[in-house]
């Protein structure tokens, strides 16, 4: 049986000193081991939603159920901080939050805050470094002496060391080249296969198409679509209205059909699927 990892019921949130609601009544359930992509324009409420799920801000009204805890407007700060034992959050450009003198100390920061024993922390550091594909020799180096790509990995290791069962990532591949992007996404996929629930905020529709089993589209503080990537891409006009793009495979398929080709699958989620589809139609023609 699938268990729910996060349940959100009618959440409302308004930032202090502002008038418009950043979240205007959001409800959703995320199942364990889901790979959820959250898409939407800047200011659509996606960052607010994931901040609430990580207990970084407290809802004005509504309820959040996570890891057996219930968070609402009356929850205490100590309750909110307990969420960090279960949820990890990789912010955008996480390398900008590194601070410690050595890589090991930086990675240990999270586990240390959770009150783990020293032995447990040491094991966690090694494990996290191996997961992100960095050699253990780097442990004693200063994180600021590393390359940009390595710094990003160290920052992610710092979150993974806390062994979160739910991992939130905000544009984790921003600024990386194709190879580094693919490596990072492979890692995230592997974590997901091993049981971690993934919530990924992204603008990259190719990533939504290839990795997510579910996609949530947000606009003006509400959820306007909670569906499969395939379903979402079958309404291209809606996406364009939200300033979102189509994955290139879908875009090509829809371009071809608009020109009179008769592809049956108009939302191929990968170039492979698209190629299969094209071959099918060409075969029919011969």
């Amino acid at each position: 049986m699938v268990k729910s990892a996060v349940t959100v019921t009618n959440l409302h949130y308004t930032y202090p000193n502002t008038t418009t609601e950043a979240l205007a009544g959001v409800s959703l359930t995320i199942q364990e081991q889901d790979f959820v992509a959250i898409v939407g324009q800047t200011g659509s409420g996606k960052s607010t939603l994931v901040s609430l799920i990580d207990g970084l801000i407290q809802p004005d009204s509504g309820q959040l159920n996570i890891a057996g805890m219930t968070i609402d407007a009356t929850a205490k700060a100590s309750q909110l901080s307990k969420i960090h034992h279960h949820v990890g959050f990789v912010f955008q450009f996480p390398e900008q939050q590194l601070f410690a003198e050595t890589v090991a100390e930086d990675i240990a920061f999270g586990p240390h805050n959770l009150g783990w024993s020293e032995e447990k922390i040491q094991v966690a550091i090694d494990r996290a470094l191996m997961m992100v594909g960095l050699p253990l020799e780097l442990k004693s180096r200063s994180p600021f002496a590393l390359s940009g790509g390595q710094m990003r990995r160290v920052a992610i290791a710092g979150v993974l060391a806390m062994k979160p069962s739910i991992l939130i990532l905000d544009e984790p591949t921003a600024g990386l080249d194709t190879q580094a992007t693919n490596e990072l996404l492979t890692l995230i996929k592997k974590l997901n296969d091993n049981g971690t629930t993934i919530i990924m905020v992204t603008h990259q529709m190719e990533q939504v198409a290839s990795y997510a089993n579910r996609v949530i589209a947000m606009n003006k503080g509400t959820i306007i679509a909670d569906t499969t990537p395939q379903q979402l891409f079958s309404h291209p006009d809606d996406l364009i209205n939200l300033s979102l793009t189509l994955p290139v495979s879908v875009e090509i398929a829809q371009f071809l059909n608009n020109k009179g080709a008769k592809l049956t699958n108009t939302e191929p989620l990968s170039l492979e699927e698209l190629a299969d589809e094209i071959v099918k139609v060409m075969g029919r023609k011969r």
Partner: protein
Amino acid sequence: MAGIKVRNITFKYPDSKAPVLKNISFNVEPASWTAIIGHNGSGKSTLARLIDGLLIPTAGSIEIDGIRVSEATLGIIHQQIGFVFQNPENQFVGATVADDVAFGLENRQVLPEKMEKKINDALEMVGMLKYKDVEPINLSGGQKQRVALAGILALMPKIIILDEATSMLDPLARKEILTLLKRLRDEQGISIISITHDLDEIELADNIIVINDAQIVKQGAAADVLKNEKLLTEIGVGIPVSQRLQLLLATRGINLPNRYLNLEELKNWLSQQLQ
């Protein structure tokens, strides 16, 4: 219209032993688009700074439109070349959009009464005129990069260098900036040099220079370089969508034309086949 001639340049930081760039030579034709690609740390950003005179080569020479880049000619060089950097936030100097566009004009000692029109024209070109009095905190990354471009265009440059200028933008903003740059190249004859690892940006180039380990390992027409999947994978850039799809189709037994097709050309070719 201006061309660039780079001859045998080598660059070494004073405190390091190994040169960042070794014996680099190439030409950039007027009104062309050149992409410089390579691993992080391959020296491609350094090369961009050398062309703009922000760094001075240890050996070799660079000529912009016949003028040799040196300490003495920096004023002229900076006027001919506009530079857009990676982080939109860290190149926005002015308190408002108009002030930021004015910054370059102020440095050129343009008279205040002549600035207004130049600022308006430049902002109009990048579609940011209605944001003229907006402060940077209320702009998105893509909007800030457009303002950066406006600041450059106000000075009527002949060359624009983009140093990973779209890498921090979301896909839509990136697409918009690239469309804008294409228009500038076609309509105003501005040469574009883009340091990038974004495949969409690379595909727009006429010529590509591949740098690895401080040296040029390949340079030539985009069609030639983009067909070299092995090299592209090696330097971490990856294979462009058009080439990946062609490979997939070829392995599925489809006979493709024997020449290089970019994404537009491939889409059109496919649509003809599928009629």
